[in-house]
């Protein structure tokens, strides 16, 4: 499987956020996006998630399902948690499992160390725990491409290790990860893309 971007440009409200970006990413590879605020890291991830059209260039995916766009074969972890305060941890995950066509609930909760809180309403979780609940989607539903926007924000040291382990496992199974981050994720990225001028 290969995800590639050719000559990619993004415009927002008439302003060019970035232009002329190229990369290719193969199975088992991690692409790390860096750059200052406003350099378009999140915008690039949204383009890869098919949540928006590039103003120039194209994104292509070779070796995936031919009748689906890259976004439909991807997980997208954004800043918001996509979880409901009024539902318990398990109920939140059951919904996403059924909606996204997923898998093993227990494994997902263990992967982010939330099994002990399974029956807690999400409203009672701390910010870091809610973040882990969002990340549990990654382990719950198999998707080839992971698009992560600052995935480690709000996580303590042990949770960061869990995240690194989760990402490592995905790469070993031949998955692709594109992660935007300001801090080291504890993994060695195969590729680096710096947006917004010289590093």
């Amino acid at each position, binding site marked *: 499987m290969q995800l590639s971007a050719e000559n990619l440009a993004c415009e927002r*409200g*008439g*302003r*060019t956020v970035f232009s002329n970006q190229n990369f290719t990413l193969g199975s088992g590879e991690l692409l790390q996006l860096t750059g200052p605020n406003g350099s378009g890291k999140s915008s690039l991830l949204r383009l890869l998630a098919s949540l928006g059209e590039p103003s120039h260039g194209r994104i292509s995916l070779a070796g995936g399902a031919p009748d689906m766009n890259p976004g439909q074969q991807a997980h997208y972890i954004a800043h918001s948690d996509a979880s409901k305060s009024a539902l318990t941890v398990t109920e939140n995950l059951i919904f996403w499992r059924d909606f996204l066509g997923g898998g093993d609930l227990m494994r997902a909760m263990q992967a982010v160390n939330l099994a002990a809180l399974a029956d807690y309403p999400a409203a009672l979780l701390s910010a870091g725990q809610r973040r882990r609940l969002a990340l549990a989607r990654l382990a719950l539903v198999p998707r080839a491409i992971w698009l992560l926007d600052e995935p480690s924000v709000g996580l303590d040291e042990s949770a960061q290790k869990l995240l690194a382990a989760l990402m490592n496992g995905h790469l070993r199974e031949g998955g692709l990860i594109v992660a935007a981050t300001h801090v080291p994720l504890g993994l060695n990225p195969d590729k680096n893309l710096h947006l917004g001028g010289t590093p």
Partner: protein
Amino acid sequence: MQQFANPTRFLSLANRALPTIWVVTIILFAIGLYGALVSAPPDYQQGETVRIMFVHVPAAWLAMLVYTVMALASAVAIIFRHPLADVAAKTAAPIGAVFCFLALATGSLWGKPMWGAWWVWDARLTSMFVLFLLYVGYIAIWQAIEEPTRAAMIARIVALVGFVNIPIIKFSVDWWNTLHQPASVLRMDGSTIDWSIRWPLLVLGLAYSFLFLALHLMSMRSEIATRKLRNLQIARSGEA
């Protein structure tokens, strides 16, 4: 590139056509007003007040025509992604709303001598009122959404949803009206009106249409200029 080429060609076309359109508009108004105010006889029941009709009826026609233009432009914007179509729909709306308001106001004026009340919930006036609300909603959407491309996308949907609903609303209001009071006085069945009244109406309808065309072209021209200006400002702030 296409985004600039098209409006440019449109602008030069509009600039060349506008003087002619204005001349035609003025001539049509002169003929129509002569027919309406001089040659048409006063009504044997309503007297001279019947002449309000010559303002009211063409305004109501135009209010409906302009919404149709808006909906067509919105459909074109969706299907062909023509950059001018959104501009056309956006700038048509306020003009259509003014025609609609004119129809409502003259309808109200006409109502006083006719029914003895400034406002009567007659089927036509009620439908016109709902149409006015649809215009207001459409204009409000453009003002509420700051990001222009998104505003355009949402406005297209608003225009088309409204357009699909207009006949249903019209039908239901007519139904409602017959339940409560039979036969409207403002009926304008073409066949029953004398030719001496009908021809000024038709000429004025045409005059209104040309007036709309002129105003619409001018409004589109200034909208395009505004957009160019904004793009220039954005480009310059990007360089700075």
